[in-house]
């Protein structure tokens, strides 16, 4: 679930409604979850309109919500998540039953289903060795993978493999064709077994593509094990998926009602695309965010049943660099959190339909959110007023050593934000908040990719505040948010997402301890405590918990992936 803000960060969300209807009704009558219903019709073709292309069609490289949406029907990961689940209850997919975890938590054994076949032209049966190869190839330069080191590096023997000292990862055993065993140095790997990298890739077929000059070209020739296979992929134009003739419905829990799906790309104007979907037939939205004015009119009009808004689509925060004065002072950071008009930050993005005012980093639907304070947060006064409270801000400025309650105008604060859309407005609201604290803001507005790759993830760029950052979970574990964003060991010269670069208060040790815990209540509470700590220290300033809207034509029984930021799940959707 690649993406740092601006792109529609969206994620999983749950609804309390399990009535089996097409979704529950949230505030304002907007449906908050498209669930499977009884008697869905089989057959037909769906067109999903999207603005952008997938990041990489190779399951070993894919790391973007829209790509996951496409691959959901073509691959079988060891475990996956049912569409109406927020990600916290993975079910066996390629795996045959729950994983067996040893008492010390360091050995995880997974049985895989027998008789699963690859799509043409390979047609052979999937074995556990294919899963091993899929993971190993993601550690090679030919298959750049953004998360493999975060979640799979704790497998024994990874270091030797990546250093070229071993031909395979010694900590992955395949005692027979239907068993794979992971030997770990510690921590938990089970949650990550839902990631696309655990879908099988047969070495005998893929090796020639993985050894192509430069990066692997396997993605363009990939095999499917799921109900669908990729018939054609035209980068930036379209992706067509059709039924996989080798798919065995008895071995898969996905119903796969539709006969085929086209992902039509290049719909850069979300207004036109939204209108086309809602007025047309057999269409649904892909990766674009519905414009706020259309969203409002859809939510209040006769087509509100065609709209689903999923909570838990990620968070948005101001990245605060604590190595730059005066942001090393916790009370100055608290003053910023207090004075920031988070309500306005939300309003310019579309208001309550598209999110909630945030008061800590973990967001709704993430395991640990409730333990960290839930919607109310931990009760700090500097998060108490969504519209901002200058008096509270001044109190903290005084505590920070500014007797007048205002900072010095000779202190310049470099802010780097986006130069278009609501993100630009967010940056300007932050600029105003810095002014209110008495400092002199210097706002540099650049394109989103420039903001990310040249400024906000490059420590030597010395940016004080980055108002357009955000994060979304990779799977249900809160560690997929808190570890990358706050663990000091992740501070790197480039591609650095530990924006605060903060090494104090034992944050690193806390995170390492939480990472070492096996799945369970203790682990959840450990992450919740870390969330409270980083939110109290205002290592970043959270301002929105995102929701994500999707629309479909009236004749589409829309089911969406709550675990995948609310995207349409075409393996469960159908035509009416």
């Amino acid at each position, binding site marked *: 679930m690649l993406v740092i803000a601006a792109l529609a960060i969206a994620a999983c969300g749950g609804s309390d409604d399990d009535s089996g209807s097409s979704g529950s009704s949230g505030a304002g009558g907007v449906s908050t979850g498209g669930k499977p219903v009884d008697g869905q019709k089989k057959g037909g073709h769906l067109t999903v309109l999207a603005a952008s292309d997938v990041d990489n069609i190779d399951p070993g490289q894919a790391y973007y919500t829209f790509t996951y949406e496409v691959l959901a029907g073509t691959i079988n990961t060891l475990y996956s998540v049912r569409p109406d689940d927020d990600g916290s209850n993975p079910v066996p997919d390629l795996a045959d039953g729950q994983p067996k975890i040893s008492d010390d938590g360091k050995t995880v054994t997974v049985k895989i289903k027998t008789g699963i076949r690859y799509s043409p032209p390979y047609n052979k049966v999937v074995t556990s060795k294919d899963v091993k190869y899929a993971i190993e190839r993601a550690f090679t330069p030919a298959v750049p993978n953004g998360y493999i*080191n975060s979640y799979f590096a704790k497998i024994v023997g990874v270091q030797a493999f990546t250093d070229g000292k071993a031909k395979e990862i010694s900590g992955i055993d395949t005692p027979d064709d239907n068993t794979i065993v992971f030997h770990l140095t510690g921590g938990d790997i089970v949650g990550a077994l839902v990631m696309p990298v655990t879908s099988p890739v047969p070495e005998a077929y893929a090796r020639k593509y993985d050894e192509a000059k430069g990066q692997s070209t396997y993605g363009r020739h990939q095999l499917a094990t799921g109900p669908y296979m990729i018939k054609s992929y035209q980068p*930036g134009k379209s992706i067509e998926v059709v039924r996989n003739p080798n798919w065995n419905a008895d071995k898969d829990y996905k119903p796969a009602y539709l006969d085929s799906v086209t992902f039509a790309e290049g719909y*850069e104007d979300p207004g036109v695309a939204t209108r*086309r979907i809602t007025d047309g037939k057999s269409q649904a939205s892909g990766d674009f965010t519905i414009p706020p004015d259309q969203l409002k009119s859809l939510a209040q009009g006769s087509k509100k049943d065609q709209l689903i808004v999923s909570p838990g689509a990620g968070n948005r925060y101001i990245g605060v660099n604590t190595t730059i004065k005066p942001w090393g002072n916790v009370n100055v950071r608290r003053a910023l959190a207090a004075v920031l008009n988070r309500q306005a930050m939300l309003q310019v993005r579309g208001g309550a339909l598209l999110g909630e005012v945030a008061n800590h980093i973990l967001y709704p639907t993430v395991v640990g959110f409730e333990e960290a304070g839930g919607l109310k947060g931990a009760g700090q006064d500097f998060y108490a007023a969504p519209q901002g409270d200058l008096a509270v801000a001044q109190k903290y400025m005084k505590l920070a050593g500014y007797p007048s309650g205002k900072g010095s105008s000779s202190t310049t604060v470099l802010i780097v934000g986006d130069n278009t859309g609501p993100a630009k407005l967010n940056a300007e609201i932050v600029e105003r908040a810095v002014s209110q604290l008495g400092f002199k803001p210097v706002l540099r507005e650049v*394109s989103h*990719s420039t903001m990310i790759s040249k400024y906000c993830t490059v420590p030597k760029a010395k940016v004080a505040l980055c108002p357009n950052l955000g994060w979304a979970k990779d799977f249900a574990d809160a560690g997929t948010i808190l570890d990358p964003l706050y663990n000091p060991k992740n501070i790197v010269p*480039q591609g650095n997402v530990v924006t605060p670069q903060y090494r104090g208060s034992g944050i690193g040790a806390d995170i390492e301890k939480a990472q070492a815990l096996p799945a369970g209540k203790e682990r959840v509470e450990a992450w919740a405590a870390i969330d409270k700590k980083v939110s109290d220290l205002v290592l970043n300033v959270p301002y929105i918990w995102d929701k994500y809207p999707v629309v479909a034509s009236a004749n589409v029984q829309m089911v969406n992936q709550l675990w995948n930021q609310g995207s349409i799940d075409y393996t469960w959707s159908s035509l009416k």
Partner: protein
Amino acid sequence: MTAYIVRRLAWIVVLLALVSALTFVVFYVVPSTDPAQLRAGRNPSPDLVESIRHTYGLDKSKPAQYADFLERAVLHGDLGYSYGHDEPVRQLIFDRLPATIYLTLGAVIVWLAVAIPVGLISAIRRHSIFDRLAMGIALLAISAPVYWLGLVCLYLFSKDIGQFPIFLGSGTYVPPTTDFGTFFGSMIMPWFVLAASFAAFYARLLRSNVLEVMSEDYIRTARAKGVRERIVIRRHVMRSAMTPLVTVLGLDIGVLLGGAILAETVFNIPGIGRLSYEAIQNGDLPVIQGTVLLGAFFIVFLNLVVDIVYAYLDPRIRYS
């Protein structure tokens, strides 16, 4: 003439080399993004970023990178590899170019078919109601941005979201070889929208050229000799008045073939313009460089074509 053409072709090569050097400096020496980091995605390990940098040759010195690019481009016609699409840039360009050519040629036909008669009649019937009306509309058309006009047309006339559903809308483009009827139907609105401001500009340009030429002595002479007005207009006025139009036309076609970004984006036509737009959004430097070079090639090449056409339109022009 042949020597002139050969000389100009040689200059085209020099110009393209200069353009490639300039784009290399702009996008590689002082880049606005780090492609390796963008390609690596969220939370990459430093090793991953470095391996991608190595894969794309971005870890070499800048002169070495440029030398590599020139060698590949000149010797193998290889414009590099798209970071975003995982495909050779040359293949992407070849894949997208036909749509841009169809869009451009169709729009050119539309705007010339509108501009020439309107400009001519407006000039001949100067200050008439037709002239005032046509020039007023032309002013409006010039002022209407393609993106805005495209959206208005979609909301009014497209079959999927329009109030008066007549034409195929956004995203309906198919190659003519696949289904000519659908292709033609899907291109009608883009052709007219793209042609609108050009037609207006050309009509105004032609009108002023015709008025200027009609006041020339040789026109008065022709009329005094008793040549019929229709022949005066066709043989003498139009021939002279069209020459500046040809210059502008050559440049405009060159620019549009380099990518009609707005029209392609609003109508979701998978051409060079949309490819450039996506590349800029994603920091896909090889694609940006490839499309810039393509645009530059079309502009300088069509300039040459214009100069050659000049010689035929104006017998006074001789190249040596």
